[in-house]
């Protein structure tokens, strides 16, 4: 389909909106209500363009312009909103750049939009990253002719602990309302009143925790703001670090905004194959631990008490502590560690010769996933088995809901994702009958056409040979669909073994379903494939108490109700002084995953890169460097002494090339994880207590003058005489 924008011819697929045609041609048109992942509504009227089409005469041929011999363009009598206008064959479009009518229309519309918008940009957290600010600068008149008082409404009105609303700033683009209706399927926010009195509110006593934070990202103005990051910094002051979230196995793309060494805000990044542009509330708001009460120096137990120490002192303490344990050392790490860190741990374990190595959480056996998140979003039948997605992998829930509203993947153009996808409609029709949920009651139940309350590890067997009408219906759903996807969660996977895998692939093969297995930990799928499980005679994490000496990286067994120590010497490597760390002999400061470079593997088997945000971590070290210290204490030389070394080790051992991973990661058939008993059941929990916002703890990193005034007396004696006197 040929379309001409400001004289620039472009070739576009049918069904493209005029707005995307304009951007595809490299031109610009302002817009507020359109959003790449929401339905176009044409409410803000900013994206006006002039459009004209050729017309076919009675003979079926285009009517020609007598002067040029080209098809004559019949211009529409008034400017059209390009977000809701479908580009058609031969259409001509004029933007503000070539049309004075459009330029005036847009400037006039901007004047209307700004009519009641308060002039509090200096105090508004959106300032500097505000679509309205930018567009007003680019397309506005520069001054308003409105000579009346602006509308006054509720300012700083908390919709929840996380989201704060300023009704004066709202420009009624309806993105947030449409977001809740179309994406998480919750009708919790809507316009109240009509006409000039319209404002946004909820009657539900607050927004539901889950996916509410996304509205702060999509609000084109500062009406809906992240309350956790409120007034923490201006947008141009943040260091933006695009990285991957490692709170759950989905691996959403995020951007970490840090200022002055503190993590102040997390915003969603776009990854079309993983999270699109949505992230969960835990990923967005649960970052406060990264700047609160961090361990910044090693601690060594002296006389029964943990004392601050240098790394050298810590290494010395470890040398003494480990001596006598020989190779009876357990090495355990958290399953959100990177592949590189896992490699370093395996390499050290091999150098020491200990079979006791493990990561947690993990399942004794994890069947292989064959489905990607895109498969989930485009499936025509979905059965969720024993999973509480809200705790295990929240964004999978959004992708399931995407499938239920039609499974339309966003179109892509030269400028990126289609901004106004005309296939998306307001209040989309959902097809709950495509979804069956078998398991304990969860948030997803509301959207499922078939709900089967059940629990226990035998759910898969019961689904394969259904004994109740509901289960029969679920199986029939899988059988009758063309692209079914089966999603498995903790409730069935805790008891998984090879027989389970065989049964699963049997069922999947029989009904032609793809399988999405939700791993226990954020990177347990990747770490499991590194042979990071107890070897012959080795002790798993769950039997920590039986190991002679142990090194634990960012694990807190004491908080899980497990013994927090090995039999003998215990070293803990963590970001905070956890319950386990408090009982350890040596505590090494760690860094969070926001401050690491490395690679993680998500539930699809996609390798995703982590980047390092500039956070203040004191002497904190990632696991690779911490293990170098441990190796030194153990008197062995590990082959992995840095990130590059770890990547080289991974390439040499498994052929994994991680060095030149693209920004969006790479889908790579993963190595099957090794099996090993855990002795523990994994109970997924997304929000850890330390992630909850605690505003009272969020002080400034800058000492006040009072502290400095104490030091007024200089060490120089006598005090120098300031010159001059009356």
């Amino acid at each position, binding site marked *: 389909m040929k379309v001409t924008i400001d004289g620039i011819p472009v070739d576009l697929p049918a069904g493209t909106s005029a707005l995307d045609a304009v951007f595809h041609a490299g031109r610009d048109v302002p817009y507020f209500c359109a959003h790449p992942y929401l339905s176009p509504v044409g409410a803000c009227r900013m994206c006006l363009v002039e459009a004209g089409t050729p017309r076919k005469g009675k003979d079926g041929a285009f009517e020609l312009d007598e002067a040029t011999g080209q098809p004559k363009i019949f211009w529409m009598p008034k400017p059209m909103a390009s977000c809701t206008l479908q580009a058609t064959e031969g259409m001509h479009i004029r933007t503000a750049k070539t049309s004075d009518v459009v330029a005036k229309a847009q400037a006039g519309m901007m004047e209307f939009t700004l009519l009641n918008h308060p002039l509090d940009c200096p105090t508004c957290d959106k300032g500097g990253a505000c679509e309205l600010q930018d567009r007003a600068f680019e397309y506005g008149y520069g001054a308003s002719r409105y000579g009346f008082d602006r509308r006054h409404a509720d300012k700083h009105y908390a919709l929840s602990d996380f989201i704060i609303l300023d009704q004066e700033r709202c420009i009624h683009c309806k993105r947030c309302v449409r977001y809740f209706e179309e994406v998480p399927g919750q009708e919790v926010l809507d316009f109240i009143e009509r006409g000039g009195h319209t404002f946004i509110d909820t009657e539900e006593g607050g927004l539901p925790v889950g996916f509410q934070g996304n509205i702060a990202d999509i609000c084109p103005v500062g009406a809906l703001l992240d309350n956790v990051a409120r007034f923490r910094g*201006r947008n141009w*002051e943040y260091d933006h670090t695009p990285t991957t979230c490692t709170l759950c196995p989905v691996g959403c793309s995020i951007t970490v905004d840090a200022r002055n060494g503190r993590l102040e805000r997390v915003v969603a990044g776009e990854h079309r194959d993983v999270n699109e542009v949505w992230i969960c509330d835990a990923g967005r708001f649960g970052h406060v631990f990264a700047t609160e009460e961090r361990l910044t120096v090693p601690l060594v137990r002296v006389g029964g008490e943990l004392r601050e120490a240098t790394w050298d002192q810590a290494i010395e303490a470890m040398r003494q502590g480990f001596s006598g344990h020989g190779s009876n050392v357990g090495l355990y790490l958290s399953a959100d560690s990177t592949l590189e860190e896992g490699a370093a741990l395996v390499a050290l374990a091999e150098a020491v010769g200990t079979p006791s190595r493990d990561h947690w959480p993990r399942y004794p056996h994890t069947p292989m996933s064959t489905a990607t998140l895109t498969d989930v979003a485009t499936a025509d039948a979905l059965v969720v088995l024993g999973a509480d997605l809200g705790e295990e992998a929240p964004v999978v829930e959004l992708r399931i809901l995407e499938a239920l509203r039609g499974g339309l993947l966003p179109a892509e153009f030269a400028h990126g994702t289609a901004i106004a996808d005309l296939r998306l409609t307001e209040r989309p029709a959902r097809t709950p009958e495509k979804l069956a949920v078998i398991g304990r009651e969860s948030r997803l139940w509301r959207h499922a056409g078939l709900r089967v309350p059940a629990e226990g590890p035998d759910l898969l067997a019961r689904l394969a040979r259904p004994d109740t009408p509901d289960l029969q219906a679920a199986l029939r759903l899988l059988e009758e669909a063309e692209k079914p996807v089966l999603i498995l969660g903790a409730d069935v996977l805790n008891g998984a073994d090879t027989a389970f895998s065989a049964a699963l692939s049997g069922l999947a093969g029989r009904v032609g379903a793809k399988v999405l297995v939700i791993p226990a930990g954020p990177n347990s799928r990747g770490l499991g494939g590194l042979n990071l499980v107890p070897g012959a005679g080795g002790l798993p994490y769950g039997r920590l108490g039986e190991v002679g000496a142990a090194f634990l990286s960012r694990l807190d067994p004491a908080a899980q109700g497990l013994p927090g120590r090995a039999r003998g010497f215990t070293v803990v490597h963590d970001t905070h002084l956890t319950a386990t760390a408090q009982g350890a002999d040596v505590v090494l400061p760690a860094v969070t995953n926001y401050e690491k470079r490395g690679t993680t593997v998500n539930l699809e088997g996609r390798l995703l890169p982590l980047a390092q945000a500039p956070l203040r971590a004191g002497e904190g070290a990632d696991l690779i460097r911490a293990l170098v210290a441990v190796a030194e204490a153990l008197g062995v030389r590990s082959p992995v002494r840095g990130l590059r070394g770890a990547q080289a080790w991974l390439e040499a051992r498994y052929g994994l090339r991680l060095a030149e991973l693209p920004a969006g990661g790479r889908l790579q058939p993963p190595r099957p994880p090794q099996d090993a008993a855990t002795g523990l059941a994994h109970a997924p929990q997304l929000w850890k207590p330390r992630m909850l916002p605690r505003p009272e703890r969020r002080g400034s990193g800058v000492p006040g003058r009072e502290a400095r*005034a104490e030091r007024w007396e200089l060490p120089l004696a006598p005090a120098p005489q300031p010159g001059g006197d009356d």
Partner: protein
Amino acid sequence: MSVLDIAKGMGVTLSKLFQKPVTVSYPEERVTLQPRFRGRHVLTRHPDTGLEKCIGCSLCAAACPAYAIYVEAAENDPLNPTSPGERYAKVYEINMLRCIFCGLCEEACPTGAVVLGNEFELADYRYGDLVYGKEDMLVGVDGSLPQRREAARTGRPLRRGFRVEGGARPELEGVEYPS
């Protein structure tokens, strides 16, 4: 060079010999400054309410070509506000060693909170003491840090080595300089 030229030169010398000297024996005597002289910053307050004009917007920091300003904002306690509106500057620091006294911060300020005053006697011993916080710049705090330290040490009133012709500029609400 002719004799005439020498005489001409000597003539200038002679004529100046009998004029009043322009040299000011600073610091014993006060130097006279023009009101538009740009010295260290003052953070002004609203004269009627006493609330700080600064709302912590960081625009001064953004405008500063020397990266001398650091601002951290916080939310006002509605019952006991520091500034009008929702937001105030919890931390407001200017590094006087970096500052080039260009006045761009003053131009960028949307509320007229930060104004360059006339004080210039800032010399001090330690780097840290040249980072001025809110406590050092709010209107009502006179003199520089070393001057105040000296006044506190000796118990004598703070003394400034300058006077301003016609007093402080009107923008410096609440600031008084000897004239």
